[in-house]
């Protein structure tokens, strides 16, 4: 199992739960980091992590290795889950009812997740400011500025061309800069994320 690529694990996921377990083991820390950059309390981060892996299971048919890596797909999924949690889309609410991550947190977990939330304060500030952007601009900028994907990896995740991504990125950064300046917040000059870079 250790020798299998992430893409091979996803391709095999429908054949047995052991592939899900291995994919989960490899990426759960990364997904907790994604959650900490988007939500400011441990309960929401826990729900986010649970929802992302529920989506991994229910949306496995949407993974196409020809369009990008498994990790890029996971980031795209995470972005959609976070947006849906914010909108309280019905399907996500259903997932929360089915598996509420927050119910699985104990006191020690709570403190541990809060530490990660504190460490991701800058990224979360940028993420919050992005909510004023259009959906397409936000998704692209979120993957790059919050999750640390390269522009080409973000383009592959969203299914758009590299040229379209660059054009959209320039526009999105300009709008985000204006938004953050208007609220007196500093605009990040580099990737805000210092955590692990996606493969």
């Amino acid at each position, binding site marked *: 199992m250790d020798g299998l690529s992430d893409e091979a694990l996803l391709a095999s*996921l*429908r*054949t047995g*739960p052991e592939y*899900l*377990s291995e994919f*989960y*083991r490899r990426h*759960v*820390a990364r997904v*907790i980091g994604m959650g900490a950059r988007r939500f400011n309390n441990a309960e929401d981060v*826990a729900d986010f*992590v*649970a929802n992302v*892996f*529920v*989506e*991994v*299971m*229910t*949306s*496995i*048919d*949407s993974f*196409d290795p020809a*369009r990008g890596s498994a990790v890029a797909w996971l980031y*795209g*999924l995470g972005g*959609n*889950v976070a*947006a*849906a949690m914010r*909108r309280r*889309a*019905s*399907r*996500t609410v259903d997932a929360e009812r*089915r*598996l509420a*991550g927050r119910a*699985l*947190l*104990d006191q*020690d*977990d709570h403190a*541990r*997740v809060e530490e990660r939330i504190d460490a991701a304060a800058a990224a979360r500030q940028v993420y919050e400011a992005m909510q004023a952007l259009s*959906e*397409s601009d936000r*998704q*692209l900028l979120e993957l790059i500025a919050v999750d640390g994907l390269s522009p080409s990896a973000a383009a592959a995740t*969203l*299914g*758009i061309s590299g040229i379209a991504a660059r054009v959209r990125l320039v526009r999105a950064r300009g709008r985000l800069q204006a938004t953050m300046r208007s609220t007196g917040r500093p605009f990040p000059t580099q990737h805000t994320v210092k955590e692990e870079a996606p493969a």
Partner: protein
Amino acid sequence: MTREVFEDRLHSQLTALYDELVPPASTTEPGTVRGRPNQHWLRRPVVVVSLVAALAAAGAATATAAGVFTEREKLMPPGMADTLAPGEETRIKGMGCEPGSQVVVKLDGVQIGTAVTETQPEGPNQLILGWYVADVTIPVGTTPGQHVITITCPYIGDGTELVETKEITVIS
């Protein structure tokens, strides 16, 4: 002995849900949806609904007209939005299914919703046209691009399988 943490407990829960949530490997693969491609989709579902409603209101629809409206080759295609986002809810309206039958909606071969066809006659001429309304959500994990919606139900005319398909664009 290692103490159990959140990640361990979540892993146990996810594993327990595996059989319920993961589509079995034997189901239809994405992109192999059966049915004839429908080239005559109207852009706005309201047009479909309004057209039939207007005809019925004008008295053009009689008991015979019900047969005309539900002739297999002349069925109004189901109406729904052409462009949707992941996580977005949308409504699909269609006709031509057996009254009280189940309508199944799939996205790229994976079921995303069901509906039950009307059983009560409607309109001034009290026609039963096999109408249904299905509220479905585009799965959050759907990738941007072209996808196929397939709607199946027993045909109102003879109970054989009626399959309608529609291409939609999922935007990011």
